């Protein structure tokens, strides 16, 4: 089985760029990734691209070939959609293709344009990741769905809005040095608690912003990286996906994330590591409660204790295991189709030592990314390790 190397990473700034089309955003991110990898465009065998809202935000389907064109690559291409995990689905597929020996060089990425929609229309578009008949038609929005989970969590395990607020404060703090982050602004617990309610118990500052942006990776086989003397010291050593019923009310648990648990277990097994070995993680924090559910399901925190991890400093920048050093979706931003790829780009940079926050994880060798689709009906986890 061929080892999968991260040869190049590319990110646009995440933020409000309503006038930038996804083809233009992806052109920038893919050019950065190809430059970073120092591979010939003619060596790219296929383009695997993630996007969620193209038909609704740009009236653009069939984006695969369009994005290959934008990247200047003459190769077959296809789009992958898994709601907010749309940026991880093509990475997982690329890993399988390289491992099987089918491919040596793949351009993988994702993009989303969202701020050209009104907030209401963006909220409606994002809600299409929920069950239309049984949730959306009952008034469920995405903040609403996570709010249902948050209240169920408080009722089951305890916790408070104040504890959740520390998750937001932490991730904003982490983003201060990340020049590509949507929000480079420190916030206080009181800011979170006093912000307008979106869907109680979640308020404006419990929620990630609606963002535009793109991310890209050049993934290669180990043999290609060695033959071409690429600087590719980080490998994707584990991949796992978990699924669950689409509607939240059909799940066994309202305050746990079994899909994340299954994805994590598979990724840990695949990499041959345990959760204890993870030095740093990027997890899906579209809402503050999402980070809590994720770190518990990934066994980074015991069930019922994830709520206190940020407040007690276990997941902060100077904690034992920092979570979301990029700023996470909460502060870095969440251009849906780009997010999963961007998590891997951020982790690769952290492990390579060329991320603004690399100094906080100098000895880190093992890392994890976790990307969730919908209310975690899809979860995709990757393990990255320093191998060279």
């Amino acid at each position, binding site marked *: 089985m061929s080892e999968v190397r991260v040869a190049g990473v590319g990110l646009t700034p995440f933020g409000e760029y309503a006038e930038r089309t996804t083809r233009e955003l992806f052109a920038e991110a893919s050019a950065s990734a190809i430059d970073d990898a120092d591979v010939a465009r003619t060596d790219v065998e296929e383009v695997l691209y993630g996007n969620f809202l193209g*038909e609704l935000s740009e*009236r653009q389907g069939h984006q695969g070939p369009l994005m290959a064109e934008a990247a200047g690559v003459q190769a077959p291409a296809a789009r992958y959609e898994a709601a907010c995990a749309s940026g991880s689905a093509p990475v997982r597929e690329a890993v399988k293709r390289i491992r099987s020996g089918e491919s040596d060089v793949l351009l993988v990425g994702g993009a989303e344009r969202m701020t050209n929609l009104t*907030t*209401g*229309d963006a*909220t*409606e578009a994002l*809600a299409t990741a929920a069950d239309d*008949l*049984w*949730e*959306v*038609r*009952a*008034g*469920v*929005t995405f*903040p*609403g769905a996570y*709010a*249902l*989970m948050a*209240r*169920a969590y408080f*009722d089951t395990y305890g916790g408070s809005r104040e504890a959740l607020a520390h998750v937001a404060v932490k991730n904003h703090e982490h983003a201060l040095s990340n020049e590509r982050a949507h929000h480079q602004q420190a916030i206080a617990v009181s800011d979170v608690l006093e912000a*307008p*309610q*979106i*869907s*109680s*118990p*979640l308020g404006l500052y419990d929620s990630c912003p609606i963002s535009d942006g793109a991310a890209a990776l050049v993934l290669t086989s180990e043999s290609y990286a060695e033959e071409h003397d690429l600087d590719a010291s980080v490998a994707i050593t584990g991949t796992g996906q978990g699924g669950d*019923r689409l*509607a*939240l*009310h*059909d799940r066994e648990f*309202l305050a746990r994330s079994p899909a994340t648990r299954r994805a994590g277990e598979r990724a840990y097994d695949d990499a041959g590591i345990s959760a204890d070995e993870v030095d740093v993680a990027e997890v899906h924090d579209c809402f503050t409660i999402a980070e809590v559910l994720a770190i518990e399901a990934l066994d980074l925190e015991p069930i019922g204790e994830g709520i206190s991890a940020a407040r007690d400093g276990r997941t902060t920048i100077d904690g034992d295991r920092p979570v979301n050093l990029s700023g996470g979706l909460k502060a870095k931003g969440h251009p849906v189709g780009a997010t999963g790829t961007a998590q891997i780009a951020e982790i690769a940079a952290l492990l390579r030592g060329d991320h603004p926050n690399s100094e906080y994880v100098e000895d880190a060798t093992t890392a994890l990314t976790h990307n969730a689709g919908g209310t975690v009906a899809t979860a995709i986890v990757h393990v990255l390790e320093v191998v060279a």
Partner: protein
Amino acid sequence: MSEQRDHVRDDGFDDWLDAIENGEPYYLTCSEEHGFLPPRHVCPACGSADVEPAPLPATGTLETFTVTSVSTPTFEDDAPYVVAIADFGPVRFTGLVVERDADDVEIGMTVEPDVVSSETTGERVLAFRWCSTSWCC
């Protein structure tokens, strides 16, 4: 994009709302006694194609809720509104909590299902009514 044609029913879902309105609510069950909502050809838990309707318990228990202030455009005039998930034993489902102030909604409340009209679109919306006494349902 073109609008959907008016009044096209959604098989299973609209039949289920009709049943609630007619006072004959049901759920679907399989030979393994898993409970699920329509439309289904097979049980989502075990894959059994032996799918039959069964009477829905008259009342359920509210498990979690949220007061949504920022809605989609299709619920703009309804906001702020309370959305909840209630457990009816074999199945759970999601609906608006009506005829109760948001401040008075609490986990553990006994509710019965109902169908109301959205103030924004006039479309039918699944709802929960609070049962203040044991005989009301």
